[in-house]
């Protein structure tokens, strides 16, 4: 498939070990499951909390009945006093109000009465109320294009821009006050006489209500405060605008009808009593709200940013500053937090308008069932769990307790679990990957070693070079190695059997030949008349040839024996060749020998064996030479070696036989060169044995000019 890429065992095993990486994923999934259970647990716990808190609030009509009579609430008419944290300076400057986002805008929709000339730009204001300590604070940011103060000498209070306040006292009295300033600055309200007609008759100044006013670019602002002890649950404000030159009021914009006690709007002041109860319950692991059935917050305890749920206390860990911990934080955590999210310590939760809590759980609670819900904070950084439980008074749902917690505790817990898990997995994976790598390396090394051994065991001619060392390891590769070794041994035995075949054959044949020979000779001696018999002579000739064949057949094995005992000595190879050639000139008078010997360095070897080698090469060359041809014998000095070459003219070699000619009993002789001498193809085999004894190489090739054959023997010089 991919010819250019063949993955080895090591690579494959590494690939397989890649599946290990699914373990952290499984762990991750598992931790997620755990988190789900923990969340369910947290939900249950929180439900328990709200139930407990609600239990403390059941059947306490005092806390609720003030508000209980209202049928419905209307935004703008019914006021909600936000708890004010920082003190407010009564100076008309609104910058110390923190909760201005809760201020409501009053304009054209809140007109109590108007003249025909009302334009929206004439009057509108923003207003909110809050409580701080024992006072109800209110501010009015009034947009008025024409401020008309009360003239210094006017007794009338309602013929200029003025603010009216109407409420009921805890005693149930309906009170109205009017603020009609002479100028910007400290304000003095006047109590108005209760009347059914819409007229303003000042009774007396009310010093318990204080206020201040300053002018602004767009109009003016008023801050005022009313002691909570004066107030019951109904409160209404109205601002009337006069424009210069008009004696009739342009417009009166109010939070609700200030003239009629029954039509007054309500004000809800968070109940300090409930708050005390909640605080008294000592719950600080959740933010708890108590709402009335109009979903207005009666009391609140705890800060959502500090409540991690019931788990928060358990996961505060000792700051461990060991080197490992530092390493973990510096190197591992950045990796982990690529896909983990750290629970935020700061997040924005602006979902709730404290004046009006909303949510599925609240709706459920107000219908009498406990409920819970999960939601994300607006910035999606934290998940908030909320649970609600109804508060009953006389089997009627009068409110609900809501508890909220973030899941930060669980998330921190989860993160810690995952950190540990990842670290463990990383370690395990690292260890197992390294282990697998080494294991694979070991296996592939062993297989490669076996392969090298197997390749080296048999040479290019199919001869067994070296045995395979059987591995003692008791596994499959060891088995393979052992069976290879065994196989090679058996092959070697067979090979040996084949190689010794000729010598054993000659040995076995010698006895019957001796029988024939002795019988013939005896016959010859016994019967004189047979001496001249041509048949007897032929039989003897045949026997001689048979005898010679047998001798040749055992020559190779005898040579191998003698190689074992051969002694090497230093001698002049050129001189040896010279002597040999002289002998050959006598032995083969019909052939011409050319010797060129250029080497003169002494050679360390066995001279008799080399002479025998030359005998074989020359005999071979002579046999294959054309008649009257010459045989060239060269001796060359090469760096580190000597090369003898014997070249003759004559028939060339078949291409496929060149390497095999040196094997035992291989011959390329054809019929027409079959001579007197029997041939078994052992000559070149013997030449090879002698060459190998001298650690040399022998090759037989066709001459470059293709006119004959050249044999080259390369003998390394011993250093």
């Amino acid at each position, binding site marked *: 498939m991919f010819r250019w890429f063949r993955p080895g065992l090591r690579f494959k095993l590494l690939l397989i070990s890649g599946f290990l990486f699914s373990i952290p994923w499984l762990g991750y999934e598992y931790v997620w499951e755990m988190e789900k259970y923990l969340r369910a647990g947290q939900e249950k716990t929180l439900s328990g909390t709200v139930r407990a808190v609600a239990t403390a609030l059941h059947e306490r009509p005092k806390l609720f009945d003030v508000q209980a009579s209202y049928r419905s609430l209307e935004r703008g008419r019914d006021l909600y006093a936000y708890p004010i944290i920082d003190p407010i300076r009564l100076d008309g400057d609104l910058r110390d109000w923190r909760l201005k986002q809760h201020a409501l805008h009053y304009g054209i929709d809140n007109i109590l009465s108007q003249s025909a000339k009302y334009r929206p730009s004439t009057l509108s204001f923003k207003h909110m109320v809050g409580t701080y300590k024992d006072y109800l604070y209110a501010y009015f940011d009034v947009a008025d294009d024409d401020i008309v103060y009360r003239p210094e000498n006017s007794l009338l209070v309602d013929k200029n821009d003025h603010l009216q306040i109407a409420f009921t006292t805890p005693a149930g009295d309906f009170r109205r006050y009017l603020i009609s300033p002479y100028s910007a600055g400290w304000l003095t309200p006047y109590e108005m006489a209760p009347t059914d007609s819409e007229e303003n008759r000042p009774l007396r100044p009310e010093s318990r209500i204080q206020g201040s006013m300053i002018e602004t670019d767009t109009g003016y602002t008023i801050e005022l405060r009313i002691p909570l002890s004066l107030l019951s649950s109904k409160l209404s404000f109205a601002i009337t605008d006069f424009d210069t030159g008009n004696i009739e009021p342009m417009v009166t914009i109010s939070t609700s009808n200030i003239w009629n006690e029954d039509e007054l709007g309500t004000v809800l002041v968070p109940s300090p009593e409930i708050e005390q109860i909640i605080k008294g319950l000592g719950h600080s692991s959740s933010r708890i709200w108590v709402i009335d059935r109009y979903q207005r917050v009666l009391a609140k305890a705890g800060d959502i940013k500090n409540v991690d749920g019931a788990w928060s206390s358990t996961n505060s860990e000792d700051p461990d500053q060991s080197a490992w911990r530092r390493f973990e934080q510096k190197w591992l955590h950045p990796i982990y937090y690529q896909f983990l999210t750290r629970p935020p310590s700061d997040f924005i939760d602006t979902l709730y308008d404290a004046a009006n809590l909303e949510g599925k759980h609240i709706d459920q609670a107000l219908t009498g069932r406990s409920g819970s819900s999960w939601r994300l904070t607006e910035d999606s950084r934290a998940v908030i769990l909320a649970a609600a439980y109804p508060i009953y008074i006389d089997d009627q749902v009068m409110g609900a307790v809501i508890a909220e917690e973030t899941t930060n505790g669980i998330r921190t817990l989860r993160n810690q679990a995952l950190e540990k898990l990842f670290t463990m997995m990383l370690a395990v994976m690292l260890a197992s990957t390294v282990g697998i790598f080494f294991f694979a390396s070991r296996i592939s090394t062993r297989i490669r070693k076996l392969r090298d051994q197997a390749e080296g065991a048999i040479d290019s001619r199919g001869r067994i070079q070296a045995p395979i060392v059987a591995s003692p390891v008791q596994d499959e590769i060891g088995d393979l190695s052992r069976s290879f070794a065994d196989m090679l041994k058996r092959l070697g035995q067979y090979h040996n059997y084949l190689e010794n075949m000729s010598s054993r054959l000659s040995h076995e044949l010698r006895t019957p030949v001796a*029988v024939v020979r002795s019988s013939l000779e005896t016959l010859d*001696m016994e019967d004189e008349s047979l001496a001249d018999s041509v048949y007897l002579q032929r039989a003897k000739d045949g026997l001689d040839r048979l005898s010679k064949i047998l001798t*040749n057949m055992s020559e190779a094995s005898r040579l191998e024996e*003698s190689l074992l005992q051969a002694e090497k000595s230093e001698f002049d190879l050129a001189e*040896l060749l010279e002597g*040999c050639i*002289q*002998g050959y000139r006598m032995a083969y008078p019909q052939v011409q020998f050319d010797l060129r010997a250029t080497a003169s360095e002494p050679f360390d070897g066995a001279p*008799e064996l080399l002479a025998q080698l*030359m005998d074989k090469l020359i005999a071979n060359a002579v046999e294959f030479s054309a008649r009257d041809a010459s045989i060239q014998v060269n001796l060359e000095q090469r760096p580190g070696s000597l090369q003898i070459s014997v070249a003759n003219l004559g028939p060339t070699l078949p291409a496929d036989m060149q390497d095999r000619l040196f094997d035992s009993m291989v011959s390329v002789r054809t019929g027409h060169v079959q001579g007197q001498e029997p041939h078994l193809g052992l000559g070149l085999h013997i030449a090879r044995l002698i060459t190998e004894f001298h650690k040399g190489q022998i090759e037989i090739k066709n001459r470059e000019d293709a006119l004959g054959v050249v044999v080259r023997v390369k003998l390394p010089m011993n250093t």
Partner: protein
Amino acid sequence: MSRRVAIVEDEPAIRENYAAVMRRQGYQVSTYKNRREAMAGFAQQLPDLAIIDIGLEDEIDGGFLLCQSLRSLSTSLPIIFLTARDSDLDTVSGLRMGADDYLTKDISIPHMTARISALFRRMEALKEPAEAAQTLICGSLTMDMARMQVTWKGKTVDLTVTELWMVQALAKHAGHVKNRQQLMRDAQVFVDDSTITSHIKRIRKKFQQCDPEFNSIDTVYGMGYRWTQDKA
């Protein structure tokens, strides 16, 4: 009284052929087919010459053992190994056992009978005084062909008949190169070239045992061997 020749050979055809030839030569022949029979026969009466095969029936080295026992019975009894085994190792072990010659079975009968008569001649000659005519002197080498004895610088060199004939062939024409064919002919053996080489090696060793300085047999590579007469 005719001489008695013992033939120990497990192959009946060869045994009987040789026995027939020996009898024709006028020898008294007793044949044995294994070591046990041979030992029983030798215990009764020692032959004058023994021809022993090495492998005897189930004993592959039976001939060697027989040779040892025989040598212990008589130190002078000529023993000839006649065997199909032609390896150097067997030859050397056979000769070390005290055999007088080691012949392979492809030797022709005339060659063998020549050796037998030569060995008998030597036995007889040892009993008679030396004849000068039969003596060849070549430097430090003195060869008494009648007694089949060789001395080098006065010391006797113990050569087999084959070796003796080779030395004779070389020394007779000292300074001339004798090729292997000539040596074979003279030594009345028919063997291959490497057997000649090992014969020459053994001869050198035997001479060197009695004189470490011995250096009279030269190898002329590709041609043959030459005896150089030393200055005695």
